[in-house]
């Protein structure tokens, strides 16, 4: 996770999204009425259930597919998912915990330097794209690890990838590119 410059770059995972299946049909009305801390959205057809610990919001569909968001680590996501399945089991559904998969991991990282986005984009065409009128960050997509990095001129970056390892790799990969285009800070 460290940069190649022997500095410790703190990659902070802010969100882990995971899905799993309960392998049984879920009666959303029952969950909405009897579950605790639930928000029923009949117009969409799902129930949101929020867990306090770990801090997780789960979207529950009647098909039995559940999307778990808000976890801060992969283990947390799995723990939360299991707790959720346990909750549904207690409500009376024949829940089986299957097909757990971490779908997305969002991490933020802060470079100790500012970045000149125009130069960065010029150097990294076509992998990087930058439309200042649309979004203030340059988007850098690493195809082979399927990670997307958004680079801001302040030096903060957000990285999203399919798992934590990919995210870390992406940061390592992009750091030297960013370092090249750093904007000297006149202070």
């Amino acid at each position, binding site marked *: 996770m460290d940069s190649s410059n022997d500095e410790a770059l703190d990659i902070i995972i802010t969100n882990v999204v995971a899905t799993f*299946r309960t*392998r049984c*049909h879920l*009666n*959303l*009305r029952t969950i*909405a*009425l009897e579950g*605790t*801390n*639930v*928000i*029923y959205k*009949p117009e969409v*057809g799902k129930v949101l259930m*929020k*867990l*306090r*610990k770990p801090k997780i919001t789960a979207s529950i569909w*009647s*098909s*039995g597919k559940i999307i778990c968001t808000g976890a801060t680590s992969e283990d947390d996501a799995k*723990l939360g998912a*299991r*707790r959720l*399945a*346990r*909750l549904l*089991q207690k409500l009376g559904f024949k*829940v*089986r*915990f*299957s*097909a*757990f998969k971490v779908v997305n991991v969002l991490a933020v990282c802060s470079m100790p330097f500012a970045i000149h986005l125009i130069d960065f984009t010029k150097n990294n065409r076509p992998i990087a794209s930058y439309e200042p009128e649309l979004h203030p960050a340059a988007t850098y997509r690493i195809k082979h690890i399927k990670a997307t990095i958004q680079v801001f001129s302040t030096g903060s970056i957000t990285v999203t990838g399919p798992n934590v390892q990919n995210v870390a790799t992406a940061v390592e990969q992009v750091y030297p590119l960013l370092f090249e285009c750093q904007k000297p800070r006149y202070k």
Partner: protein
Amino acid sequence: MLTNNTGPVAKLYLSIIYDVIESIRELFLDEGLEDRVLDDLKHLWESKMMQSKAMEDLRKNTINSSNFVLQLPANYTQTDQELGASVVIPASHSIHSFPMKNNSETLATFSLPAGLTYPVQIPAGVTLQTASGQLYKVNVPVVVTQAPAGQPPESKTTHKVTERREAAAPQSAAIPPNATHPQEAEPPSVPATAVTQPPHPKPTLPPGQESSLPQQPPVPAVEPSQRQGAHSPEPEVTLEENEPSPQPEPVSLRMTASPCSQMLDFQICTEEVLTHTAQLKNRDIDDILKEVIEEEREKAERARNRMPAKTDNQSEAVLGLDLDYNYSELSDIVQLDGPAGNSDIEEEEEVPLEENDFLGIINAEAVKALQEGDGSSDGNSISSTSDSEGADELANVEEEDPLNSGDDVIEQDIPDLFDTDNVIVCQYDKIHRSKNRWKFHLKDGVMCYGGRDYVFSKAVGEAEW
């Protein structure tokens, strides 16, 4: 009825009761039930409502203390009250002091403990406060007893009756002369007083005056006697409902004077019905005390449970009453709330506040909406799910399934701390959430908070989850 000296909630409830009773009166008559059955129902209902304390506190808060103060002449000599009292409350002892406006006047405030055994001797100059919050100033020494019904009213009770009677000036001067009114004056005066009673309360009671308390005795000495006569038969009437001529007058009195009558009267009367017997000698005190001690203990919880039902389903409230007469048979309305119902719980106050925890609100209508919406959506998804699941199972045979019936799964450690009695039943205008901050815009609701009932047409709230 007892719409005076009541808070807005109590007034609403009483008007609801009145409407329901009136609307089903014909039904009752058609069924062949006597009118007094309906009256019993009404009294029972009202008394249970009063006892539930849902409105008592409200009433207590809205009552000006001055109304309750009855000055007893300091030199009033205590007449003998036979009936060996099991509890003698010394005049100087003050268990509970209720803030009174006229503190300068000598008065002792008592709160009779629950479980008090009759008879109780209460000296003069004592202000009794029932557990339900009702204050009664005893101008004359009384002995509260529990006696079989049917006994003729005695002068002692009549004194108290006057105390609680409708508004006027303090009767302190009139008390000694009243005390001298023996019982013998009582029965003959009953019919007369009953007749004169109806016109009396109305002029004396300013309409809608909540603060006018029944304890304000009328200035003229005649009135007390009138009241006494009229009042004492009332409990009997409510109790027995089988007494002849004098009784119908008070009964009609009560009904006709409903807008003006005192809540106390009802308490007293309904208490009679509920409890069982009352010594007419100390009827008024009996009523109050019985209401406090016996009824409240027995029925408070039930009444409280019934409260949300009553307020929510006005027309269905009949079902919630626990009566010997099975009035629920008369109505085909399904009771959605009640003791067995699963009341929706939310902690909130009328004033926007921030609380740490809350539960979602679902009222009956929303529940139905949910049911209908869910039924249709679920029905559609079932068929598609079964098809997809079949394919999935083939593809995901190797998928893990280690739930192990909860062995590995950690039990949720979120306790069920939402089992409160604070309930709001209402409709929502808008419910908004941002992350974990909730904002509620509610309308047309009844809230039971801290045992008290609040009715609102609009409520705004904030909460953090």
